[in-house]
């Protein structure tokens, strides 16, 4: 009996050839334990070495191999061929980002936004090392731990129609990471981050579609983090208006 095969329809774009993007269909062996990334690696090694894509760890840790798989943003290392077999699988670069070539997107915008939210601990005054570490209770760790799991895979940006329609939007992962530090008991940088967060292009562009949370492979819940940031910013505003004499 002939070995079963499955078709991958892959988005191809090679700007030096001056052509518009097109889909190319590759027939590859079907193996039950293969993920889409295995299939793409097979194409690269055996059929067409010109195919360009990003990948590294192939185990859902590095966040490099995000792609649109049948229209849904997923890590191609976590999407099994058996979920689609015997139907063909359509593979495209992550939605809403410009395409450099084939499945490789331009991620400069995300990297810039990530930096803007200052995703590091900010202290008003660093305590000297001799005074020991900053201690946290398990409850204080729980407060932000979920948001610290982000692997910067950008699936949430590809899932967010607001980002697609309004590219200035700061976006789910950057806000979730801002919250990761805002909610950290060791951090004192919330005021600084609010300048970026509490703006039209920051948290207030979000209309709570919620698909960022659905797409997230590590359960960060960016949608929840943005809504929490909205509640905090609103409470700040009321405090400002009702208690204008007091310091927040």
């Amino acid at each position, binding site marked *: 009996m002939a070995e079963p095969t499955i078709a991958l329809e892959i988005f191809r774009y090679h700007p030096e050839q001056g052509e518009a993007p097109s889909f190319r269909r590759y027939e590859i062996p079907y193996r039950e334990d293969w993920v889409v990334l295995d299939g793409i690696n097979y194409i690269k090694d055996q059929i067409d070495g010109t195919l360009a894509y990003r990948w590294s760890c192939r185990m859902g840790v590095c966040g490099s191999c995000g792609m649109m798989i049948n229209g849904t943003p997923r890590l191609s290392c976590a999407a099994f061929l058996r979920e689609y077999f015997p139907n063909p699988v359509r593979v495209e670069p992550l939605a*809403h980002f410009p395409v450099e070539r084939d499945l490789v997107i331009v991620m400069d915008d995300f990297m810039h936004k990530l930096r803007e939210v200052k995703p590091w601990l900010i202290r008003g005054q660093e305590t000297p090392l001799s005074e020991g570490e900053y201690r946290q209770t398990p409850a204080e760790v729980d407060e932000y731990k979920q948001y610290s799991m982000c692997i910067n895979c950008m699936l949430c940006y590809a899932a967010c129609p607001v980002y697609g329609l309004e590219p200035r939007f700061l976006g789910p992962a950057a806000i979730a990471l801002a919250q990761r530090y805002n909610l950290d008991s060791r951090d004192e940088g919330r005021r600084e981050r609010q300048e970026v967060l509490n703006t039209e292009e920051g948290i207030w562009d979000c209309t709570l579609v919620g698909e960022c949370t659905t797409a997230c492979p590590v359960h960060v819940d960016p949608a929840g983090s943005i809504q929490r940031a909205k509640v905090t910013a609103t409470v700040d505003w009321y405090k400002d208006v009702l208690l204008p004499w007091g310091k927040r």
Partner: protein
Amino acid sequence: MGEAVSRPYRRTMPATWWLTNRAYFLFMVRELTSVFIAIYLVLLLVLISKVAAGREAYEAYLTFLGTPAVLAFHVLALAAALYHSITWFNLAPKGLVVRVRERRVPDAIIAGSNYLAWIAVSALLWWVVL
């Protein structure tokens, strides 16, 4: 082999993007419910102005409100308002994280308290109006 060229290709979102995925569609339905609410509020404002305009104008307007098309609209508007409120209350736990003695209050209690407040306010209005 051609020279490596960087000319990023930009894709545009089709106007039908919200029809491509069930979650997008349900989100859009929630957004569109606001159209029904807006029209309902206009009808309500007109009603108030008719009350001020006198008995005849008021009764003529009541006849208009009683026509099948307007009644059908109100049924639709009620459905839209319910859909909006219910989906929104169910999302409330996302934004509201309350901790009592270091334990996070369960989502069901956060959503439930929204429903309770809704019932209480509705009952109050009912009592005031009737």
